[in-house]
C-alpha cells in the first residue's frame, strides 16, 4: 500500500506492507533509528513519537494508519542546529544513562509540555507512566523536564 507522510518536515511517499508498524517503517524504511523498540505490548514507550502533535507509541500503530499525517521523531526535534530545550535539559541534568529510552522519554515529555506547560512533579511522573527507564530511577528525567518547562517559559 502506498502512504504519504511528512516526517520531520520532509514528505515521504512509500509502499509498505499492511502489517508494518509505524516504528518499523521509521526504522527500516526511513532509517530513522532513533525511534527504538523495547517491547511488543506498547508498555515501554521507547518508540514514542509525535503524530499530528500528539505523543503516541509507534510500535502499535500501523504505517498505513499514519497515511497523511505529520510525524516528528527524535531526529527532527532540533531546529536549525539548535537543540530543543528538552534535549538540552536532559543533557544538563543527566536525564539519561544508556540512552535507549531517551528518545521516547523526550518525545513523551514534549507531548506532555505541549498540553501542560507548567506541570507539577506529580503531573510529570504521571505523564511518564507509559515510559520505562531502567537506568535513572526517573530522578533526573523528572528534573530534566522541570528544567525544560522552566526554560521554555
Amino acid at each position, binding site marked *: 500500500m502506498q502512504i504519504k507522510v511528512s516526517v520531520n518536515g520532509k514528505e515521504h511517499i512509500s509502499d509498505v506492507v499492511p502489517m508494518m508498524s509505524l516504528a518499523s517503517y521509521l526504522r527500516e524504511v526511513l532509517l530513522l533509528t532513533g525511534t527504538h523498540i523495547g*517491547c511488543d505490548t506498547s508498555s515501554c514507550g521507547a518508540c514514542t513519537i509525535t503524530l499530528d502533535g500528539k505523543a503516541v507509541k509507534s510500535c502499535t500503530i500501523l504505517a498505513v494508519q499514519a497515511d497523511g499525517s505529520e510525524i516528528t521523531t527524535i531526529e527532527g526535534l532540533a531546529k536549525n542546529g539548535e537543540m530543543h530545550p528538552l534535549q538540552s535539559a536532559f543533557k*544538563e541534568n543527566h536525564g539519561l544513562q544508556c*540512552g535507549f*529510552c531517551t528518545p521516547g522519554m523526550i518525545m513523551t515529555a514534549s507531548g506532555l509540555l505541549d498540553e501542560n506547560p507548567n506541570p507539577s512533579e506529580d503531573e510529570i*511522573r504521571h505523564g511518564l507512566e507509559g515510559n*520505562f527507564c531502567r*537506568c535513572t530511577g526517573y*530522578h533526573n528525567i523528572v528534573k530534566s523536564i522541570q528544567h525544560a518547562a522552566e526554560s521554555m517559559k
Partner: protein
Amino acid sequence: MSNYIGKSIKRREDNRFITGKGKYTDDLVLTGMTHLAFVRSPYAHAKIKNINTKAALAHPGVVAIYTGDDCGNFGVPCGWQVNFKNGDTMKEPPHPLLAVGKARHVGENVAAVIAETLQAARDAVELVEVDYDELPTVTDAKAAIQPGAPQVHDDVPNNIVFDFQIGNPKDEVNAAIESASHVTKLNFKNQRLSPNAIEPRSYIADYDVNADKYTLYTSTQNPHLIRLLMCAFVLGLPEHKVRVISHDVGGGFGSKIYHYTEEALVTWVSKQIGRPVKWTSDRSEAFLTDAHGRDHVTTAEMGFDDNGKIVAFRVHSEANLGAYLSTFSTACPTYLHGTLAQGCYTTPLINVDITAVFTNTTPVDAYRGAGRPEMTYILEHLMDTAALEMKRDPVELRRINFIPAFDGVNQPGYQTQVALQYDSGNYHATLDRALEMLDYKQFRKDQEESRTNGKLLGIGFSTYIEACGIAPSAVVGSLGARAGLYESGHVRVQPTGKVSVFTGSHSHGQGHETSYAQFVADTLGIPIDDVDIIHGDTNEVAFGMGTYGSRSLAVGGSAIMKSLDKIIEKGAKIAAHKLEAAEADLEFAEGKWTVKGTDKSITFGDVSLTAYVPHDYPAGLEPGLDFSSFYDPTNFTYPFGTHIAVVEVDKDTGKVSLKRFIACDDVGNVINPMIVDGQIHGGVAQGVGQALLEGVVYDENGQMITGSYMDYAMPRADDLPFFETDRKVTPCPHNPLGVKGAGEAGTIGATPAVANAVMDAISHLGIKDIQMPITPERVWRAMNS
C-alpha cells in the same frame, strides 16, 4: 591540580543519544543481511521426538533451518567452577546452542529459521512442526531436591549442582546460636527477577569468506570475553580472525555479561550460509531467555547476647540456577554472596551453607549486585527484625555491632570470618549523615501521629557493605574462576599531543567516555577535549574483561593510570633532553615539565611532537609515546553506606508508598559526582523494584506467567519519589585513583531498607514478616488475617 576530577562534567556521549544518533546493534543493516527467528519450546520440560522442517523450508524467503542435530555438539561453558563440599567437581551438563533431545525450560532454542526478511523467518517458525512428549516439571529449588522430583538432567542426582559452605565451622556457629540470649530467625525468599535492560539483546554476525574472518556485532558488556569464550570453548574459531564489536548498548545490569547460545549460534550460522545474519530478541523472548537474577530460598538466624552484640550468624539457602549453568551463575550464590555475610558488623562466628539446584526455569545469573543484594537483604532485614523483637532501636543495635573505622593505611584492613579482608571503612560516618538528613526524632513523632489517621508510616534502615571492583585474578582463580579479572588500558599520545585511550571496560550507560576523560585530562594536565575514550571493539582495544561488578573505574581506570604513569615517565626523559636538565630536577604539572625553581619548561604537546619527530632526541630512547598496561587489583573494593526508606502503608488497601529515600554512600573517591549520583538513583530504583513490585512467577507446569510488561511490574516514574543522596569519602587504599565503585551500591542497599520500612509501619499490628515483592495484596492479607 584538578580541573576535571570531582566535577560534574556533562556527559559527552549524550549528544548522540538525545538526537537519536546512538548506534545500537539493531540499528545496523548490513548488505545481504538475513534474519533469524527461533522456534522455542512451549514446554518447561519435554522430549523432542521429531522436528519436521519441510513445510517451513518451502516457505518463500527461507534460506536455511537448523536444529540441535546440526550444531548440538556446540555448547556454551560456565565461567566459574565451584566444587562440592567433599571436593567433587560441580555438575556441568552441556548447554547446547539448540536443544538436543530434550527442552528444559520454556523458551529454550529448539530450531533456528533464517530467511530474507524477519517476517518470512517468523512465519516459517510457525510452520516448523515439533513433536514433543511433555515431561513432569519442577521450578522451585526446594522441591527440586526432594526425592522423586523430576530430573532436569539425567546425570545430576536430585538436581544438585553443588553444595557449598563458607565461614566458621558449623558446630561452633550452631553452639553459639543455641546459647545466645536472643535469636532472631526468619525465612526469606529472594524472589526471581528479570533484569530488563530496555534494549533487547541483539546480535549480527558477518562471515567474510575471502578473508575467512568473522565479525560479530553484539549488545554485550564485555566484547573480549565473548570472543574468548566463543572461540576457545564453543566454536573453536581462531581468535585472531574474530572481531567482536559492541557499540552502544542499551543497559545491561548483568544480563548482557554472559555468552548466550544465540550469540554463538548466529556466528556459526553466518559461516554456514555465507551471509550476514541478524537476531534481535523481542520482549517476550527477553523474559524467557535473558538470564534472571536472585531466586534464593533461605532460612537464617542471628544470635545476640544480653547487650545486643551479635554472637553468631548462620544462613542456609537453596539457590535456583535454572535449567543450565549461565556464565557466572555459580559464583553468584557462593563467592559473591557468602563472603558478604560479615556486613559491617563484628560478628565473630558465621556459617553460610548453600545448595545450588537445577530446575525447569530460565538460567539464573548475576543481576545488578549478584549475590550481594541477596545477602544484604538477609542480614539487614534480620537486624531490623531483631531490633523490633528485642525492643531496641535499629540504629543503636547497628552502632553497637559496627566494625570501628579503619582507613587501611594507618589501621589495617578488617579480616572477616568469610574470607575477605575489607580495605577501608567508616560505617558510623554514613549512618550519622543519613540520620541528619532524615531528622529521626521528628520522624518517630510523625509516625505516632500517622497511626491515628489510617496512614501507617514506617522507617527502614540498611547499613550495607559490598565487595566490588572484581578482582585479584589469583584469588578468584583459586576460588574457581576460569578467567582472570584484570583490565587493560592503552594510552596513545598522538604527535600533536591529542590522546586516544583504549579501555577494556565497556560503557553501556555508565558514562566512561566522560569520567575516564576527566582523570586522563587531569593526570596529563591537558584539556578534556584533547582526550578520546575508545571501547567496545576487539580490533581497537588490546584486551578487556569488561564491565560488571562495579569494576570499571577501580580496575579499568587503574590500568589507564598505569599507562599514564609510563607516558609521564618517558615524557620526562624527552623533556630533560630538550631542557638540557637532569630528569630529577624536573617536575610535571599542568601539562608541562618545568625545571624546578626556574621558568624553563616544555609543554606536553611539544614533548609529544618530539617523540614522533625525534630529530633532537635522547640517545637510545625509542620514538613514540604509546603505552599499554594491564592492572590486576590486589583486593576487592568495599563501598558501603546507609540507606533509609520512609514508607506509608494505606490501612485500607495495603498499598505501600515510598515517601522518602535517603542514601548516604561511601564509594571512595569520586571522579564525576553527577554520574555517581545517577548510578545510585538507578540502583536504588531497582532495589525498590525487588522490595515492592517485581517477581518472575511460574505456574505449576513451568509456564512463565509474568512474561510481559503487563504482568511483570517494574518501577515507573510515579512509583518513586526524588531520592535524597549524599556521600562520605573513605578512599580505597589500594588503587591509584582511590575509587571503590558505585554501580551496584544502590541496588544492594535499597531493598532491605524498603522491606524494613514496611515492617516498621505494620509490625505493631502483630505482623511478623511479609515476603517480597511486598504488594498491596500481601500487605492487605497480612493486616486482615
